[in-house]
C-alpha cells in the first residue's frame, strides 16, 4: 500500500462541497506536487492528511494505518507541515525551531546540533538569535520550514512555501526540499507555480474544484496529459 492513501475523500464546509471524492496514492520517498487553481481545495486536502480536520466520508491511510480522530495525534508525530501563511512564535528564531525538540525530550547538545543543521539547510544560522517577529516574509517562511523539518518527519506537507518570495528565497527553499527528498522523505508540495512543480516533483497531481483530475509522472503530466483540463491548466487557458 502507498505511504499515504486517500480513498474517496469528501469534505464539505457548510453548504459547499470542497473535496468531491478525492483518491490518490502517494508513494514513500516521492516528491509529489499538487497544483490547482485557488479555492480548488489544496489546503483543505493537506489539513486532512495532517489530521487537523477530518473527512465527512472516505478514508485516509498513513503508512497503512487508517487516520482517525483518536490516532491523529500519534500519526502526526511523523508529519511536518508548513502552513500557507505560517505564524512564528514570539521568540527567537532558534527557539522557534528548537521548540518541538524540547518537548520531545532530546538532550540539549543534540537539540543544538539539530537546530543548527535545520537552520543551515535554510541558510538562517546568522539569524538564530533574532526575534522571529522581526523577520522578512522570506526569512519567516524559511524558519517555518526549518521548524517543520527539525524533528525529522517522514512526511512533509508544504502549502505554497514559496508564494510571494523572491528568486533567492525560492532557491533556498527548493534546495532544502530537494535535500529532504534525497533523504527519502515523502514530500507533498502544494503550489500555484507549475514551473516549481516541473523543477521539483517526481509526480504532479491536478486538483480542480475538489476533484483529482490527473496524477502523473512529471514529464508525462506536462507533455502528455490525459485529461483535456490538465492541458488547459498547463497552457494557462483555464481561467481562474
Amino acid at each position, binding site marked *: 500500500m502507498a505511504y499515504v492513501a486517500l480513498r474517496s475523500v469528501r469534505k464539505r464546509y457548510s453548504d459547499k462541497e470542497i473535496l468531491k471524492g478525492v483518491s490518490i496514492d502517494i508513494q514513500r520517498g516521492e516528491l509529489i506536487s499538487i497544483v490547482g487553481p485557488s479555492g480548488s481545495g489544496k489546503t483543505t486536502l493537506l489539513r486532512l492528511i495532517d489530521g487537523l480536520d477530518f473527512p465527512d466520508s472516505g478514508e485516509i491511510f498513513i503508512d497503512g494505518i487508517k487516520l482517525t480522530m483518536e490516532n491523529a495525534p500519534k500519526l502526526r*508525530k511523523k*508529519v511536518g507541515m508548513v502552513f500557507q501563511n505560517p*505564524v512564528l512564535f514570539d521568540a527567537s528564531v532558534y527557539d522557534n525551531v528548537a*521548540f518541538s525538540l524540547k*518537548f520531545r525530550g532530546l538532550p540539549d547538545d543534540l537539540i543544538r546540533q539539530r537546530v543548527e543543521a535545520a537552520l543551515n539547510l535554510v541558510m538562517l544560522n546568522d539569524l538564530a538569535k533574532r526575534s522571529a517577529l522581526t523577520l522578512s516574509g522570506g526569512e519567516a517562511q524559511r524558519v517555518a520550514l526549518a*521548524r517543520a523539518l527539525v524533528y525529522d518527519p517522514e512526511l512533509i506537507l508544504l502549502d505554497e512555501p514559496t508564494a510571494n518570495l523572491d528568486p533567492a528565497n525560492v532557491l533556498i527553499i527548493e534546495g532544502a526540499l530537494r535535500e529532504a527528498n534525497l533523504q527519502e522523505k515523502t514530500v507533498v508540495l502544494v503550489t500555484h507555480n507549475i514551473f516549481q512543480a516541473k523543477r521539483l516533483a517526481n509526480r504532479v497531481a491536478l486538483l480542480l474544484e475538489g476533484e483529482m483530475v490527473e496524477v502523473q509522472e512529471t514529464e508525462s503530466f506536462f507533455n502528455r496529459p490525459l485529461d483535456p483540463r490538465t492541458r488547459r491548466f498547463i497552457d494557462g487557458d483555464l481561467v481562474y
Partner: protein
Amino acid sequence: MWCDSMGWIEIFLDGISEAFGLILSSDAEILGIAALSLKVSMIATLLGAAFGVPLGFLIASRSFYGRSLTIAVINTFMGIPPVVVGLAVYLLLSSSGPLGFLSILYTPQAMILAQTLLTFPVVCGLTVSSILALDQRLKETLQSLSAPKLWEAFILLRESRIGLITAVIAAFGAAISEVGAIMMVGGNILGYTRALTTAIMLYTNTGEFALAIALGIILLLLSFGVNLALTILQMRYRKKR
C-alpha cells in the same frame, strides 16, 4: 467644626503637606495601614491570578456546552459591587455560616478571601478575552508540531502575556481601590484590619480630612508604584513585536 472656617484649598494643601510629613516621618500607624492594604490586595491579586489564568485559559481553549453563557457570567462578575462580595463572604464566615468554623471573620485572611473573589473574575474574564484574541493559526501550528497540552498552554499564555499583565493590573486596581468588601469582612480594626480605603472612609466621616487626604495620596502612590512596575514589564514584552 474647623473645616467650616477653612477653604477646601487649605484643607487640601494641609492634607498634602501632612501626607508627606507622615510619609517622611514613617508614622507607624500609617505605615501599618498602608502595608496591610498592599499585602491584602497583592495576595488577593496573586490568588485571583493563580485561579483565574488557568480557568480562563481552559474556558477559552476548550469548546463545551454553555461556554458563551459561562463567559457572560464571568464577565458579569467582573463588575460585581464589592459590598455584594463582602456580604456573601460575611454570611459565609459568620459564626452560623458554612465556613464559620474557620473563625476568620474580621481578620486579614477574610479580607484576602473577599478581595480574591473580586480579582478572580477580573483575571479570568480578561484571560479568556486575550486567549480568544490570539491568532487561531497559532493553536493549529502547535497541534501540527505535536506539542503536548501543557506546552501548548505555555506558548499560548506566553503569546498573550501582554493581555495577562493587563488582567493583573485591572485586578490589582479593583482590589486596592475597593472599600465595601474589606469593610464588611475586615471590620476596620485599628492595627489589625484597617486598610487605606477603610481608613479614608473613617477619617472622612470623623472630619479628619488631612489624614484622609494623606492616606488617599499614599494609596495613589502605592497603586502607581505597582502599576508602573507592571507597565514596564508589559512594555518590555511589547518591544519585540
